[in-house]
């Protein structure tokens, strides 16, 4: 007996695969570009590198706590819905 082909499932699986690979490649490309830009040991680049690190250290996380809480809640809801899909 031939197994039933679920097009909906196939579409979801392909979408997840393509989006994950694309996002991973984009992030890796961006990080590599920043690494090539900030690595040279010229004085100007060293000053810029120190300034970028300084700006990152001055970032106040407390300002973004409401957004982070909302993201965590949404992730929880999404995880519960995925669990319902698989085991419900």
């Amino acid at each position, binding site marked *: 007996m031939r197994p039933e082909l679920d097009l909906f499932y196939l579409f*979801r699986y392909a979408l997840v695969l393509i989006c994950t690979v694309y996002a991973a490649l984009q992030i890796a490309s961006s990080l590599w570009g920043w690494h090539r830009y900030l690595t040279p040991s010229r004085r100007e680049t060293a000053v810029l590198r120190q300034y970028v690190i300084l700006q990152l250290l001055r970032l106040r996380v407390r300002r973004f706590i409401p957004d982070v809480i909302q993201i965590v809640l*949404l992730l929880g809801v999404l995880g519960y819905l995925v669990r319902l899909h698989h085991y419900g």
Partner: protein
Amino acid sequence: MPDPPTTAPMADMPADELARYGTELGLEVSPQTPRGELLRVIRQHQELLLEIDRNALLDIVVWARRPVRESVSKEQLAREIATIHRMRFDGLSDSGLSVLAKLRGVPVDDGDRRRDIIKRLKQHEGIWNKLGRKSRGAVGKFIAQVIEGQRDDAGEYHFLPEDKPNQALREHIEEDGVVSGIARKLRGAADVYVHEKLDEIEARIDRKLDEIDQRLAEWRDREVSNRLRIIKITLVASVLVALLSLGYDYFIRRPVRMAAEPTPGVIAEPQPAQPSASTQTGSQ
């Protein structure tokens, strides 16, 4: 610190520098305030400073134990007083309290009582500033007790020592002769002027660098906020698609699947037996 600008240069100052000057004097202004309004507010404050008694200003800095020279100008004292946010007025003279209230924008009449002025100052502070000040005070008290422990009284207040006075022209001429003495005096005056101007230029460059720093920090915070907003929108879309998929599964696919499966617990009706070939030939 450079002398305060006169009326003519102040009219030529750019809006952000006017706003900074007004903020240093303790006024609530911003670069977005219209230029005419900025000039009006600053000139009004300068007129107020002209009317105020200098000794009252000195009383305030002595009460707040701020390091100033006794000979500084009223405007320098006003700038220092603008950084004082204390709300406990014990030890401050009545004239000092009245002047402090005027400098903080609280209307005061000559016949007002001390407790009325204090009440108006506390009302002017606002609930949020008061909460922030109380919380900072509690944290400061705790940290000071941990680090410094019990501390004795700071002692009597003293003004900062005055700058060494410039040598008089007579002394220059006594030392170097008429021409050399006058040239040395002029050179000294020119050096002082150049140093003041260089200090002013350096202060303006520092302020511009601070402004650039602040704008970059705002841009950085805005970018992080935008990235977090994009993540939230993506998650909301994912949740909606998951709900849609779950609804599809529950209301369409599952009933179809359940209709195709046999219902458990129902006994099937016995089918009539089909006659076999041997019984048929036997009966014949």
